[in-house]
């Protein structure tokens, strides 16, 4: 009996051990969920065990923007530009810091430098939010140099559609910023969109603007050879110089060259006359 009891105990103990082992195995299996399919590097990172993603990333060294800008001259400019542009790409917070300094800096070159660093990063210069930030500066800031620099940022965008109407309003209604708004609207050669409203505005300015610089610029932007022909006899030399670059009639330009009394204007006309051949 005693022997039977011992055997029964032995069997129970073995069963318990086996059950325990099975139980542990089941628990472990439950604790390891089926791995997620990996599709992108981001998913891959998320699928790693927690200790894999918990590794702390090193915070980028802070840059004292103002201190660096104090040395913004000569060959240092290239180094600072390179460093700032790299940092803008890797650290979105840095871009906002640069913008804060842009808003309070009073040196026109530093202001322009800062907008140019921000514009170097395509996701920023093509972001409607950033365009809006800079357009507000162009519309409302008290300093002219900051307003002009803000338009330089906008001019570098792939498309200025989100801010187009307000830029037109600036070109038409803000005498101080008119020329800068016009060139921003005209855009850079590789970012230029045909824009009938700009042409119409340039036509109006070419007709009635009293500032010869703006009038000449408007004639260039409108690109209307007939109006340009008439402007070849404009009393302002600057206007005549702009106009001769739009004229397409050799006869008209030849006649203007014959009567032109300003030697510099004459030389510009002669240059463009040669181009018309």
């Amino acid at each position, binding site marked *: 009996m005693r022997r039977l009891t011992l055997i029964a105990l032995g069997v129970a103990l073995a069963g318990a051990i086996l059950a325990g082992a099975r139980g542990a195995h089941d628990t472990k299996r439950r604790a390891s969920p089926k791995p997620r399919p990996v599709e992108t590097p981001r998913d891959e990172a998320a699928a790693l065990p927690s200790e894999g993603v918990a590794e702390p990333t090193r915070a980028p060294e802070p840059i004292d923007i103002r201190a660096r800008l104090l040395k913004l001259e000569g060959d240092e400019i290239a180094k600072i530009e390179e460093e700032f542009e790299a940092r803008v790409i890797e650290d979105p917070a840095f871009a906002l810091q640069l913008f804060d300094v842009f808003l309070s800096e009073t040196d*026109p070159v530093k202001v322009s430098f800062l907008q140019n660093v921000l514009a170097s990063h395509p996701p920023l210069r093509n972001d409607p939010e950033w365009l809006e930030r800079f357009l507000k500066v162009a519309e409302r800031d008290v300093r002219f140099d900051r307003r002009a620099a803000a338009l*330089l940022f906008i001019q570098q965008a792939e498309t200025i559609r989100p801010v187009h109407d307000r830029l037109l309003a600036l070109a038409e209604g803000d005498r101080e910023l008119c020329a800068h708004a016009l060139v921003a609207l005209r855009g850079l050669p590789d970012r230029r969109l045909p824009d009938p409203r700009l042409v119409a505005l340039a036509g109006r300015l070419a007709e009635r603007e009293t500032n010869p610089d703006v009038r000449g610029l408007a004639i260039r932007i409108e690109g209307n050879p007939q109006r340009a022909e008439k402007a070849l006899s404009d009393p302002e030399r600057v206007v005549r110089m702009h106009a001769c670059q739009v004229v397409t009639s050799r006869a008209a330009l030849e006649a203007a060259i014959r009567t032109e009394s300003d030697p510099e204007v004459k030389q510009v006309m002669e240059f463009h006359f040669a181009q018309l051949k």
Partner: protein
Amino acid sequence: MRLRGASATLVLFLASAAVAHAQTALKASGTVNVRTGPGTGYGIIGQAHAGQVYVGIATSGEWWKIYYNGGTGWTHGSYYSALSGSTGVKVTTDTLNVRSGPSTGYSILGQVYMGQIHFWTVHESIAPWYKIYWGGREAYIHGDYVTRVNLTGGGTAPPPPPPPSGTTNLSVTHYYQVNNYYCGPTSAQIVIQYVSGAYYGQHTIAAYCGTSPSYGTSNWMVKQAINYYAGAAYSQVSYDGERLRNNIRNNRPSNINFQCRYLAYWGYSSAMHHSVVKGYTGGGFYVHDTWMGPNKWASSTELYNAVVYHYNLTAMRY
């Protein structure tokens, strides 16, 4: 007879000792003989005069072999300085008449032949005629039968130092304009000094350019002055940022004529101005401004606006 044989041997020896060079523009500093061989024992075939420029193609010791009078001649290098960055014209037809003036109405002086290269006196050519130096005098050939070629510096005058590797800001000496309307002559002075090593005063250049207090200096004349005083090959062209950068990479600063109202370093004030672009960064350019000072930085967009929305024409090298 024996003497002639010895002479022929000497010529052969010297011919084999001659070292071929890339076409080099050589400017005479005085009147100097041109001979049939590289030594004073050779016969004189003519002379070169001060200021005339001939194209050297080979050297033998201190002697240069040049294109001269429709053939070649030898002349002593110590009477010449080399002009770097200048342009020559290469004959592309079998025989081309050389005339005393820029039309077929002028007399024929002689001929030049296929492959010969002559220095092109850019500033005095009258299209389509090219003014050249030929046999000790000025002469003209028709532009339809030549092609332009670059001439190298070298020889007795060292070319401008190459930019140190890794930098894109040339070591160009800066000068301030001496009065408020000399920006054109000063910007020419800066480029001339860099390209040729020669210093010319602003009044001298201003007189050449016809600079006036009322309208300053035209782009065209700035370019003419650079070509005249530096023997360079600058051209008046439409603004192009990449061309500017390329010039700088090739050790050539460019003159720009611009509207200051688009430049931050000018405080966006309204004035027309000449200066020199002599370096670039990733997003901008270094400008030696004749009024504001050396190494002024302007973003690429600023400079584009300042030049393109001014006259769009500026003096750059080819």
